[in-house]
């Protein structure tokens, strides 16, 4: 067990280093960097001291040094908790991310809870009432959800909200509450805005889960141990929940681990952009677009860490939930 954990950890570290290095290379790949872009902008505006100013920046951020030096400096600082500075905002990446972390986590949790609370019962219902009207309705809806990308749905909902309901639904707070301290009114306001991302995740996120849950459960219901449990005199509901669902839900743990944790940052980035939500997603996309190197690099590394931790957690969870699985 300890051996297993150590090995997984070692593997994870190698992975993070590799991924961070590769993403650094990728971001560095296009000719020109953030500062060249900025220089062009300043010059276009007719700023005469632009060249000097940029050169100053270049020295400040260490961009004039060789690539390997840049990477190692950043990587070493990263370990110390210094993720570098965002060129775009001219502020430490750490502060920028920290500012948005709270809302990001809240949103991710809300999404997670909504998706699972809706998907699992619907999937179970769909399986035990296979081919019934209810199953067909659920199946149809989950197919639509599967095919419907979140950001397109967000656009459609935005259309409905703006044109038909004539409501301002962007962001997570109304104007008066954006910078206000927490209060009852602010929470209500948050909930008023939260329904849209929640609805979107309910439609798009549950489709796949419902299908998987339905499929797993149908397969499990065909297993002899379900029949054996019934032959022991258990109630139908006990047979289904205690024996069939208990087994059928195990594979979902993997999904929980590999999607929920990385979802904190990456989940719904596109939706967040459409709805202008103050989460990390839009920040990251923007940094990629602008070649804001340290910002983008930090985000990718955190993605990877969350993904790897999520995978590890789900493996541990799975081993705990299913005695057949042994970690070694």
């Amino acid at each position: 067990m300890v051996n297993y954990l150590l090995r997984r950890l070692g593997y994870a570290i190698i992975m993070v280093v590799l991924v961070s290095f590769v993403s650094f290379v990728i971001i560095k790949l296009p000719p020109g960097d953030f500062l060249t872009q900025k220089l062009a902008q300043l010059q276009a505006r007719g700023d005469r001291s632009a060249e000097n100013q940029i050169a100053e920046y270049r020295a400040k951020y260490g961009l004039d040094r060789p690539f390997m030096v840049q990477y190692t400096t950043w990587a070493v600082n990263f370990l110390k908790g210094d993720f570098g500075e965002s060129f775009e905002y001219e502020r430490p990446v750490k502060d920028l991310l920290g500012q948005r972390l709270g809302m990001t986590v809240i949103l991710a949790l809300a999404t997670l809870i909504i998706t699972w609370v809706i998907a699992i019962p619907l999937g179970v219902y769909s399986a035990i009432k296979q081919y019934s009207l209810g199953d067909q309705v659920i199946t149809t809806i989950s197919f639509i959800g599967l095919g419907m990308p979140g950001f397109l749905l967000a656009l459609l909902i935005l259309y409905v909200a703006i044109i038909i309901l004539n409501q301002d639904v962007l962001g997570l707070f109304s104007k008066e509450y954006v910078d206000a301290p927490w209060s009852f009114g602010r929470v209500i306001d948050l909930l008023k805005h939260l329904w849209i991302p929640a609805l979107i995740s309910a439609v798009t996120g549950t489709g796949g889960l419902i299908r998987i849950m339905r499929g797993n459960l149908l397969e499990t219901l065909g297993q002899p141990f379900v029949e054996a449990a019934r032959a022991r005199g258990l109630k139908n509901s006990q047979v289904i929940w205690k024996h069939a669902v208990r087994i059928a839900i195990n594979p979902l743990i993997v999904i929980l681990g590999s999607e929920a944790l990385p979802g904190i940052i990456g989940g719904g980035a596109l939706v967040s952009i459409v709805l202008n939500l103050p989460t990390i997603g839009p920040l990251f996309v923007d940094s990629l677009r602008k070649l804001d190197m340290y910002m983008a690099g930090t985000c990718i590394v955190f993605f990877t860490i969350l993904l790897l931790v999520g995978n590890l957690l789900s493996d541990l969870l799975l081993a705990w939930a299913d005695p057949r699985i042994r970690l070694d």
Partner: protein
Amino acid sequence: MNDVLIDVKDLHVEFDVRAGIVKAVDGLDLTIRRGQTVGVIGESGCGKSVTARAILRMVPKPGKVTSGQVMYYRKAKKGKKHLKDEVLDITQLPPDGEIIRQIRGGEIGMIFQEPMSSLTPVYTAGTHINEALSLHRLIPLQKVGDQMAEAITTYRTVTKDEAREIAIDMLRKVGIPKPTERVDSYPHQLSGGQRQRVMIAIALSCEPEMLIADEPTTALDVSIEAQILDVMRDLQRTANMAIMFITHNLGVVAEMAEEMVVMYMGKQVERAKTVDLFYDPKHPYTQALLKSIPKVGKRSNERLATIEGMVPDPFHLPTGCVFHPRCPMFMPGKCDKITPTYKQIGENHWASCLLYEDV
């Protein structure tokens, strides 16, 4: 006839699948007495497993009992105060109702062909036994009803430790080595033979009137099969329960059953005492079946007798006697036209063949 336990009368079970209707069980009569072992034998798809499930009112979808009765003669029993003398038609009980659930596992236990997958993988052997115990051996107060309030005093809930002791005891009874350790084993940590023993322990823990064994040794090796059959015989002797033993293996049924029923394409073709059936089979199918198996220890250079042709397509059953296209005694104009009745042709001997009818 008061020792009759299960009386299946003219049972019909149909499976309505897309390609048509399969008559899985087509007019079956079967009587099982208390303490008796009845072997049900037949090739795959002959309806023997479906019959077993119909007795427990758990025919899988899309199967349906379309007609017939499964009469269950319930008897008052010491230690199980909710039981009284009554006759129940199992096919008429609500499929997830209180009564049928008392019967399942409590009064009729069942073990299955696949010991590898008949135990829920996430629960230990002990958990499985305790689950059955909690359902049947100790009836919770509120479920029994007022008129028995008096008797309830004899019941009490067992503590966790006691339940564990019972489970260990059951495991010991079915011959599992180191039962105190094995009670905490998960199914995957047990071998196939041990799992089947656990299944038997579960079934027996509630002291049932009857055990339905659906090909319990088919998936096991010969040496393990011998162990399991041995355990079953021992336990039957001590517990005096009936066994419905479903198998396709003539050797197994010869050893286990006093009486046996031969099924072919959903119909019973012959029923007799096991000895009579082996030494004086009446139905051509039974005769052919017995001749077609090689017998260990009696090697001869003779060819095996075979049953010609194939098992018919269940969607297009032959007319008349379903066996007529393969029957060596085929009587043209009769067997392909007239459906034989199930007729008594001797003491304790029934057959369904036109050879024994005046037509």
